């Protein structure tokens, strides 16, 4: 080890720079969200929770420049839409993605590998293509753009994510367990309820949470298919940015970050507990 001391130190530096590269912007956002300087974020002007107060609708220092979130009501509406869309889209995707994963893993049918590849397609499809395609589809079929079109649009690609996560879990499961269940008198539904589902549940929950976070986070596709009064949080933030980068955005970003970490941790915890 000693001989390579110099190289080893170089690698440590490299590692530090690598993670700094990834996490520094995120850390900066969190730090800025507590910076009292309303004009220039890069200059620390003391700790404040004003931006958080502002976005929650309790402006503390009512100065002209910080009355940026004109309407907290609008923000809340966007958050509500996002949560609603994510909840519905991830639930629907979890049911269908899991069902497809089981079908592909367990049943014998023709063109199976073709269907499997088909399930991966939405993931590699460029978001912008999917967004435009969905928009044209909705417009040409005369469907009015709303939160419901967003939900449908999100399902089209979230099912793929759930499918992949659940498929990995099923691959780990011994097929013989289902045969054993049938052998002991359980029909297909009883086998699913008592054996298959309990054993793949960590994968199902993991896939569902992943779908939820991706749905909450999606901007590109949603941007195309969101109706006028169905703005989601990412679309709302994007709209705010167009009028300049303001400190409140840091606070919103930080809250979203914490929310994602909590959801992901819950998933990991559930997974660990089942083992």
């Amino acid at each position: 080890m000693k001989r390579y001391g110099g190289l080893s130190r170089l690698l440590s530096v490299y590692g530090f720079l690598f993670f700094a590269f990834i996490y520094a912007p995120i850390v900066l956002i969190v730090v800025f969200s507590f910076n009292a300087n309303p004009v220039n974020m890069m200059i620390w002007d003391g700790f404040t929770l004003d931006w958080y107060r502002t976005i929650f609708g309790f402006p503390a220092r009512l100065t002209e420049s910080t009355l940026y979130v004109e309407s907290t009501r609008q923000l809340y509406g966007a958050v509500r839409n996002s949560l609603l869309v994510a909840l519905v889209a991830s639930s629907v995707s979890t049911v269908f993605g899991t069902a497809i994963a089981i079908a592909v893993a367990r049943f014998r049918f023709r063109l199976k590998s073709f269907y499997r590849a088909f399930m991966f397609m939405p993931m590699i499809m460029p978001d912008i293509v999917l967004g435009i395609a969905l928009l044209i589809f909705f417009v040409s079929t005369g469907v009015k753009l709303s939160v419901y079109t967003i939900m449908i649009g999100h399902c089209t690609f979230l099912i793929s994510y759930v499918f992949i996560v659940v498929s990995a879990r099923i691959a780990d499961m011994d097929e013989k367990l289902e045969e054993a269940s049938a052998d002991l008198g359980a029909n297909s539904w009883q086998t699913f309820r008592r054996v298959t589902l309990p054993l793949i549940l960590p994968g199902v929950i993991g896939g569902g949470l992943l779908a939820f976070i991706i749905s909450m986070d999606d901007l590109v596709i949603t941007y195309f298919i969101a109706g006028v009064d169905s703005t989601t949080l990412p679309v709302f933030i994007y709209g705010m940015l167009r009028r300049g980068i303001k400190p409140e955005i840091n606070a919103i970003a930080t809250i979203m970050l914490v929310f994602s970490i909590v959801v992901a941790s819950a998933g990991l915890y559930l997974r660990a507990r089942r083992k």
Partner: protein
Amino acid sequence: MKMEATSPMAAAQARDAAENGPARPVLEIRHAMKRFATPEGQEVVALDDVSISVAPNEFLTLLGPSGCGKTTLLRVVSGFEDLDAGDIFIDRQDIAGRPAYRRPVNTVFQTYALFPHLSVARNVAYSLEIAKVEQAETRRRVSEMLELVGLAGFGERRINQLSGGQQQRVALARALVARPKILLLDEPLSALDKSLRGKMQQELKALQHELGISFVFVTHDQEEALTMSDRVAVLGQGKLQQIGPPHELYRTPSNVFVARFVGESNLFAATVSEVGPAHCHFRLADGQEVRLPRRDGQTFSAGDKVQLLARPEDARPSPPDNGTGLRFSGPVREVFFVGTHYKLVIGTSEADEPLKASLPAGEDLGAGPAPGQMIELWFPASRLHPLAGEVGS
């Protein structure tokens, strides 16, 4: 395992047999045909016109090399595969097309297939819970079953806390608790180490006797098959080669495949030289001739090519003065001492393959034959068994 004196089921069957003559088969497979298509597009015949019946309280073993169709046959009975042609009857009921969960058979899987998310007791209780058996009754039967397989007090353990042998017993208890008409066992002992396997063989046999349930046991281990079974069905290339009690298979195999698969064998190519009313004469390539009594069903005619089977333990170090048999001599190539016996491999010019002989390690052999030493061996005619066909067939 704890045994009770008599089981009501066995007693009922004995009564049944007394009243109705020979017991009717509990399982009957008639002309089973099954083909598989390999991913390469080739067709493999897994079962080729196989007919087998299993009597109540019988321990039947399906024996054969891997790919012989024995596991397929088991899966056809349990309902995981459908036959292309043929019939299966359980208790005289045609069960073709009946799904696995509605068949009165249970399986002990090779890998046990225990439910990892359930406790030992819940694993055993599984079929009773499905059948909505009353809770108190379920508890009683589960603890009874766990006691029977020697796992009393293990009910609350998790599956991954058990050893391989214990898991084996849980799998057995789980399959037996529903009181199946037939228990199917798919190479259940192959994952156990040798000493444990021997112990489980005896326990399984005792359990089967105690419960009075027919066991259909699949194995590729011929020793295991001979040890445990009432009857053994030898399968090869999808065909039923022979079915019969272990000693019959061993002493009078019906063809070269069975002779080679069951036990160790010496096969001598011979020609039928003369067919008499009660005896046949066989001549070996080296000119030795031997006269054997004709057995039922043997249809040799003069000039037929046959194989004469002699088991290694039939070898005698020296012929008595008045005996008839086959005599061979050659150098000892290898010697294996196995406690009770010396196993010898002897090179001879007469046989294509080296001779195998097993001589009792008595006082007269002392430290045993030495490699390289010339030895003379004799196989008495009474221990020879003629088989139709060439070695390769």
